[in-house]
């Protein structure tokens, strides 16, 4: 019985994640800029959070390897109107994500690589979700791993011939 429930949850999540990817494609082109098919998690420290349209953005630090600090920039998949209607108003969100706050992030790395990504979910140290968003059960935990999950780039990115 327990095994059956587990399987059901896994199956539902698979469906859910596939749909999430589809919807993301319609969301400011974010799933094209980032690899949302390979999400991963890490602990990080918030250095800045911008609660703004069209999507919030944030910067955060990760401590990796022998204590080196990586400075990351990221956008969020969600947007302020969705957050506000879910109870994550500007004031509440900025309080919850003040600089120095330690958070666990679920993110996808930029297609071009580097310390840039899209944040799908934010949890605080108590495991509570901040701002809504989707998690990714089974996503590898790469806390402390230099660079997190970086893409294998063999081909030009779509539209790169138009690079400014």
């Amino acid at each position: 019985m327990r095994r059956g429930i587990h399987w059901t949850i896994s199956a539902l999540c698979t469906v859910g994640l596939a749909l999430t990817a589809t919807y993301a494609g319609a969301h400011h082109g974010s799933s094209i800029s980032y690899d949302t098919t390979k999400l991963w998690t890490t602990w990080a420290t918030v250095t800045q959070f911008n609660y703004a349209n069209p999507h919030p953005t944030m910067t955060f630090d990760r401590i990796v390897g022998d204590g080196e600090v990586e400075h990351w920039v990221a956008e969020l998949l969600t947007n302020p109107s969705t957050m506000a209607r879910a109870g994550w108003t500007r004031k509440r969100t900025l309080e919850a994500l003040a600089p120095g706050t330690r958070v666990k992030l679920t993110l996808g790395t930029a297609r071009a690589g580097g310390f840039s990504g899209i944040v799908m979910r934010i949890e605080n140290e108590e495991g509570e979700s901040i701002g809504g968003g989707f998690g990714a059960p089974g996503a590898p935990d790469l806390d402390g791993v230099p660079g997190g999950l970086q893409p294998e780039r063999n081909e030009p990115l779509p539209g790169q011939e138009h690079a400014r």
Partner: protein
Amino acid sequence: MTKRRTLIAAACFTLTLIAQGVAAQGERQAAAPGGIGSSDTDTRSYDKRDFSGLWSRAPQQYDLGPCPECRDPATWPGYGFFGETPPMTPEGQRRFEENRPSRGLELGSEEAERRTDIHIGYRRAVLPAFGNDPEMRCEPLGLARLITFSGIGAAMEIVQTEDRIVQLFEWTWDFRDIWMDGRELPNVEDYLPRFNGYSVGRWEGDTLVVTSTGFDDRQWLDQYGFPISSEAVLEERWDRPSPNRLRARLKLIDPLTYTEPWESSPKVWALIPKEKMAIGGWSGILEDRCVPSDESLFNQFRDRAAGIGDGESAAP
């Protein structure tokens, strides 16, 4: 641990509802005459000519029952005008090729190569940093794009008076008037074109028929980069098939761009009680503007994702 499992289960349950909605949509659309069904089970009497209220294409966001027919068919990769795209004129084709959207299936991807059943417009998305979607510069969306996007996440409100109907769009905080006072459409030669054009409406039975002209041709018809000319005419047919549903069918007549009229797929919205669309007790649509300075900051993050720009301003 238990809490975590509960969270996962809740997230998955929500996603499953969405999945069921998408699947049910296909079934209903196949079964119902006219290509669209209704999930509204409300049998109360209502005024079929009263469109006033808050409307959304995602009622689940407001703790209301799902509306599978509110979403565009799963055949399409998102939200747009859709329907059967007519052949373009040489000028239309030239402008189409100039536009580089960032929505739809990714250019060159396996899925884009496989989905030859849909127009190339829906399978040519490039990274936003390499695209030229006017929305990503906070330029006005234009009427057809406002209508076809509105209600997905951002809601739409309709205010109805004796002589006009005003449509308010949450995303980009835009609006348009539909004049019902019997006036004629202006001679476009005498007026400046507008992103939302000029609209007049009349009733045909319980269907509101709206005709709009005078469009600014810098807009895209939808997020896939289909062009529209300043000589285009947009015809809309709106009706309220049940108490909690509003439906629109659009037809674009633009001989400078397309060789035949283009009819959209039907668009359906669900009525949202105002107490459901409230933050801190204040109900109504949000001022969900696209502010250039916000967008500019956002684009610095976006460009870093494409490996361009030094990101100096984006970095802490």
